[in-house]
């Protein structure tokens, strides 16, 4: 199985979830994160003192899928999260060796 980790803009979450649903992928886990990259945070003045809000709010979406549908899932995320502007985010893929559904004890593909 593959773990697809996508860092996206917060207001694209709904689109990404819908795009994945269309591919019949309906399990995912979402985390609020802050990102640092090319998209720079804005400079702000607080009571006259300048500072940089360095980190930009992002959403991390984690999806574990069977190997066979990983590329479909990646494509779905890319197309739904894309707004053509800096900071649209990244996708990272790694391997999951083993999965368990806690409720039933089912494992691997059955567990997803």
């Amino acid at each position, binding site marked *: 199985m593959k773990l697809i980790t996508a860092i996206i803009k917060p207001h694209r979450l709904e689109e990404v979830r819908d795009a994945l649903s269309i591919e019949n992928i309906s399990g995912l886990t979402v985390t609020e994160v802050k990102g640092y990259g090319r998209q720079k945070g804005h400079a*702000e*003045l*607080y*009571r*006259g*003192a*300048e*500072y940089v809000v360095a980190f930009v709010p992002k959403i991390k979406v984690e999806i574990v899928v069977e190997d066979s549908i990983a590329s479909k899932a990646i494509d779905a995320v890319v197309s739904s999260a894309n707004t053509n502007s800096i900071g649209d985010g990244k996708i990272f893929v790694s391997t999951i060796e083993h999965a368990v559904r806690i409720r039933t004890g089912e494992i691997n593909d059955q567990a997803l």
Partner: protein
Amino acid sequence: MEAQIFQLQYAIDTFYFLVCGALVMWMAAGFSMLEAGLVRTKSTTEILTKNIALFAIACVMYLLVGYDIMYDGGMLLADIALDGASSADELVSSVLAESSEAGFDGGSVYSNASDFFFQVVFVATAMSIVSGAVAERMKLWSFLLFTVVMTSVIYPMEGSWTWGGKDVFGMFALQVGDTGFSDFAGSGIVHMAGAAAALAGVLLLGARKGKYGPNGQVKPIPGANLPLATLGTFILWMGWFGFNGGSVLKLGDISNANAVAMVFLNTNAAAAGGVIGALLTARLLFGKADLTMCLNGALAGLVAITAEPSTPTPLLATLFGAAAGIIVVYSIVLLDKLRIDDPVGAISVHGVVGFFGLMIVPLTNDGASFAAQAFGALVIFAWVFIASLVTWGLIKAIVGIRISDEEEYEGADVSECGMEAYPEFTR
């Protein structure tokens, strides 16, 4: 029949004092919310604890000795229930005698208990100013120790010289009339005094970790909860009607009732002017509508008008407020440049603008002179600053005033109170 009229006048004036006093008491909530909103989450429980505890201590210490030092009100207030009379009937007749002597239009005759109630909440106000400036890094118990000294001695002493009508260390007089010094409701006596004590504390305490960079950069530490800070400002705005309005001291005839109304009107106008002054100044300097500056601007307008809210026209009151709103923005930026770390801007709002408030009194009140105002300000500042410096210094030497670096990183809430303000939200 005349007696009944005096009775009604007494009742009205007493009630007026009580209502105004309750509004000033309410300012304690305002300071608490303002400060809780402008510090970081991790110091919020501690600042709340300081605020409610300082209010309680101020009430007790002023009752025990402060009121006696300031107004010869009697230690422990033992006799206040009957204003010193031996029975309820005697109280009535002595009040009526006093009223007859004063005359219907004369000085105010009202319950001593209401007077104490009104005065005691002023002490707490002065002390509330301190808590904001030393927030997030001072030891709680050291702060409370200072509170005891401030509310039982330091404030009552300077209060006795001004409103109390006693000579300054038996040397010279500062009260209105004799001296050309005038401070209607306490721009100097309450607000600048509080700021002087705060400044002394901040100088001995140093800035919060991480507030100033090694190369002199100022690193902002945003307040954690702006709705609370805004609520606090509105509470203070409302409470200030009692603060200034009650300082007319009498309501019960046409002249005085009209004066009270003018004071309400001008107090409101100055606060409004302060918001606009600060809003526009911040817009010009920083390019944004800075809410925290609007809040400080409102308070600056209020502090500025406090030294004389009865004589300016409403337009002038607005303009005074606006000037105060402008001054406070510059003052806050300047103090940060001087590395005087004041998380809530208390020294600028109450100190710098308190002084400004004193200095504009002669513009509308012939009884006051610039020289006397400046001299009065100097006396108050010098006394409170030096006495506070000594007190803070002693406390520092004996038990310390600053929490450890590790405690400061973790937040004063955990080290001082063992309790987080919002335990469920992730930080």
